[in-house]
């Protein structure tokens, strides 16, 4: 019989090589972030597997769509029409406000906030590792997606693009333990850093002093600092404030406004100017 010892390096040598190579990969990938372009190729090469894994839910969705009754469709149509009507009414006031804001900014000589180019992407139902909060979306570099692009849904910020492939990309959610987003309180403009807790719907504010004015129900919007997230998008709502004097800092928890556990479609924002805007103010 042809044993493994009859050709090539011995088993122990192979293991040593694999261990050394893996440790180098972990170090270079995690600490130095040195595999961005390699990851793009590997992601693109393995994306067919993800599309295959996505097939069962795709087929289920399609058949569910085929089986929707006429009555349901009419009801949905009615609901959407109502929503559009209400949104349209809000937009009328918004147009006036926007014009007013432009005039005021012109008086102050402040730069006028530009509108962003937006791309709609759909969630791919593919499993991820249980240790982090990530999702896959079905657009990649071919659609102009780039690394650390910001994502929002209709309620607020979702997260940022972590890795891109040619036809799909991986998104890191706000609630991941490794993610933080600069925010400010809508009520009094105090700035915080909101970090993910690893839970589904929880963020915590870091290094909040006991004297800072933060209360339950405060809405936090992205401050635009850091240049990743454009300023002014709603991020979270404060749910718990615990000012225990024995602790170094106050414990402030917040809940993301975006429905992170029920994502279906996401909006990717293309922005360049948020950083400069913030610096001028």
């Amino acid at each position, binding site marked *: 019989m042809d044993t493994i010892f009859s050709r090539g390096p011995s*088993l122990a040598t192979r*293991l040593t090589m694999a261990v050394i*190579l893996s440790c180098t990969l972990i170090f270079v990938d995690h600490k130095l972030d040195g595999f961005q372009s390699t990851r793009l190729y590997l992601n693109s090469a393995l994306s067919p*597997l993800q599309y295959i894994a996505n097939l069962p839910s795709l087929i289920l969705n399609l058949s569910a769509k085929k089986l929707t009754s006429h009555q349901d469709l009419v009801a949905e149509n009615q609901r959407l029409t109502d929503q559009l009507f209400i949104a349209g009414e809000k937009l009328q006031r918004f147009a006036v406000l926007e014009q007013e804001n432009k005039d005021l900014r012109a008086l102050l000589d402040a730069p006028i906030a530009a509108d962003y180019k937006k791309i709609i992407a759909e969630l791919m139902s593919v*499993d991820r590792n*249980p240790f982090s909060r990530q999702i896959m979306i079905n657009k990649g570099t071919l659609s102009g997606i780039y690394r650390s692009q910001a994502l929002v849904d209709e309620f607020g910020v979702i997260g940022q693009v972590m890795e891109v492939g040619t036809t799909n990309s991986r998104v890191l959610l706000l609630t991941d333990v490794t993610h933080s987003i600069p925010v400010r309180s809508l009520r009094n403009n105090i700035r915080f850093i909101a970090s993910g807790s690893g839970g589904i719907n929880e963020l915590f504010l870091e290094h909040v002093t006991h004297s800072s004015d933060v209360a339950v129900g405060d809405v936090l919007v992205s401050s635009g600092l850091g240049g990743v997230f454009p300023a002014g998008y709603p991020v979270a709502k404060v749910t718990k404030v615990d000012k225990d004097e024995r602790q170094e800092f106050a414990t402030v928890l917040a809940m993301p406004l975006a429905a992170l556990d029920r994502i279906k479609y996401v909006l990717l924002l293309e922005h360049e100017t948020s950083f400069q805007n913030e610096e001028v103010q």
Partner: protein
Amino acid sequence: MMARFFTIPFSIIVALVLQIVPLPALVDIYRPDWALIVLSYWAMALPHRLNVAGAFITGIGLDILLGTPLGIHSLVLSICVFILVANYQRLRNYSVWQQSIVIALLSAFYHLLQFWLLHLLTDIYFRYDYLMPTITSMVFWPWAFWFLRRLRRQLKLK
């Protein structure tokens, strides 16, 4: 001839797809370690065809698919397969039930080592959920074993 050459890579690809197929949240934590099961079978049955190098490449694929830092799964799978290949002659003589206990231990080791590596890199905390796949891997091993052995015998893989 082609079928014989591609059986092992193809079975590994199927295992990778099974590893990422979405499941309802309730059963998701019980997902068996398909990649580990398939690699274990080939490592025991044909250790000259699949050993540490194959496990390493599968691990890189898994790292890309699951979004962990590159090298985590490749390191853990390489060590698991090394343990199997180093003892393959003894393990082959075990009954399937004894083997499934070995697989359970290996799966627990796989998850603990993976947790430990990720704990060093990020601030995640241990939950007992992470060890649930150990039980399902143990239950699924005999079926995977019989299926893959039939495949190997029918295609006369050596």
